[in-house]
């Protein structure tokens, strides 16, 4: 997966400035940076939830389609996990996980359900399949959201601050699932400030500020020896907590 010279503006605001980023298959990249630096926008452009103004984004060597069926197919290949889970509120947990495979991948219902049960077991919420999202804790909902994405067999998975909306005691259960995914070779881009996760699972840390990629390094060198003032300043702030 590769971004080349990506530019994006919101009106006068230059949210993504000349972004070059390539992520190899099976690589786990953690994106960190201050609030408003463009991390969410970066994820959203890769999934084409937002169009870019300039530059290209390539997945498996092919550029992102602009619209229609091809775009929908592309989105199906890129999983996305949101900060606010966004499970379908009117569907059961099982239906949340089977809806995409049945409607988008045209999988038979029985096969989709079998796979959904496997995935729900894998993320540890197998016994909740018949419930509705509102009946689950935040941590459980986020794990279902991960299972829902996985059910589409994505080539890449994007995580936009997946644990920021969670109570501290639930963060670990979600991170454990993500570490497991990373170990199984999933290509992942993860926006998070969880340094523990970055240290155990990430191959690389990308630091963003003001719409630019300021630094890109392996986790150990980034956290122990950041090169830029912005990164040092930022790490100083989050390490105090």
């Amino acid at each position, binding site marked *: 997966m590769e971004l080349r010279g990506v530019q994006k503006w919101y009106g006068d605001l230059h949210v993504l400035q000349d972004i070059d980023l390539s992520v190899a298959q099976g690589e786990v990249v953690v994106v960190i940076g201050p609030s408003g630096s463009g991390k969410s926008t970066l994820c959203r452009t890769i*999934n084409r*939830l937002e169009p870019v103004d300039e530059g290209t984004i390539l997945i498996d060597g092919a550029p992102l389609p602009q619209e229609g*069926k091809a775009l*929908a*197919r*592309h*989105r*199906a*290949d*890129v*999983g*996305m996990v*949101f900060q*606010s*889970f*966004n*499970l*379908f*509120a*009117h569907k059961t947990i099982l239906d949340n996980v089977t*809806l*995409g495979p049945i*409607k*988008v991948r045209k999988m038979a219902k029985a096969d989709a359900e079998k796979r959904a049960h496997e995935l729900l077991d894998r993320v540890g919420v197998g016994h909740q399949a018949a419930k*509705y999202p*509102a009946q689950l804790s935040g941590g459980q909902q986020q794990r279902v*959201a991960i299972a*829902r*994405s996985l059910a*589409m067999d994505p080539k890449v998975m994007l995580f936009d601050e997946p644990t920021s909306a969670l109570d501290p005691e639930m963060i670990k259960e979600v991170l454990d699932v993500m570490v497991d995914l990373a170990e199984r070779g999933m290509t992942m881009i993860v926006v998070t400030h969880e340094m523990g996760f970055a240290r155990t699972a990430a191959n690389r840390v990308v630091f963003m500020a003001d719409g630019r990629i300021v630094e890109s390094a392996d986790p150990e060198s980034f956290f122990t020896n950041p090169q830029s003032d912005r990164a040092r300043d930022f790490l100083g702030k989050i390490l105090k907590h």
Partner: protein
Amino acid sequence: MDVIIEAFPDILQAFWLNIRLALYSGVLALVLGTLLAAFRVSPVPLLRLIGTVWVNTIRNTPLTLVITFMLFGLSYQLGVTFSDTISENVFWLAVVGLGVYTAAFVCEVLRAGINTVDVGQSEAARSLGFTFTQNLRLVILPQAFRAVIAPLGSTFIALIKNTTIAVVIGVTTAEGINESSGLMRTLIEFNGDQTILIFAVFALGFVIITLPIGLLTSWAAKRLGGVR
């Protein structure tokens, strides 16, 4: 009181005619209204324009005008007929008129419902690769409908009351039965001294039909609206 007892079978049949008008035009309004709401939130500018023009034109036109247009414009001038029997034809013209009119209101109620659905729902659907239509049909509309059961109930109650406007173009059944307001007028014409009683009976008739709908939809809104 004798007037009422004597006319009772006719009254029942008259109300039944109003109910049939309401049922058919209600289904039409629901289908058309949903389609219009889909147009109004669609990414295609032309569809959005069609939706906006339809809704704003119809909402600002008196129902009597719409119904009259059905008979004189659609039927006489443009030659659109639904049946060879005159009374049947007029019945279906009224259904179309009421349906087209009510659809504009259903559309606006639904659009308000769509706005209550969290944008995250739609983003999750898009990120799974759903097309716009799938997103609307599987994720957004089911939640939007749940959110607007009560106002949709009110729209339908208004439609039931509006079926009396069909008298303007003379809706009768094949057997020559008036719809309720038409029958009421006839009864009052011949029994002027009993106007208040006759009026009260017909008003009660409408309350009997509409009250359960109001109760049912508020009950359903409480039950289903919670699952969000």
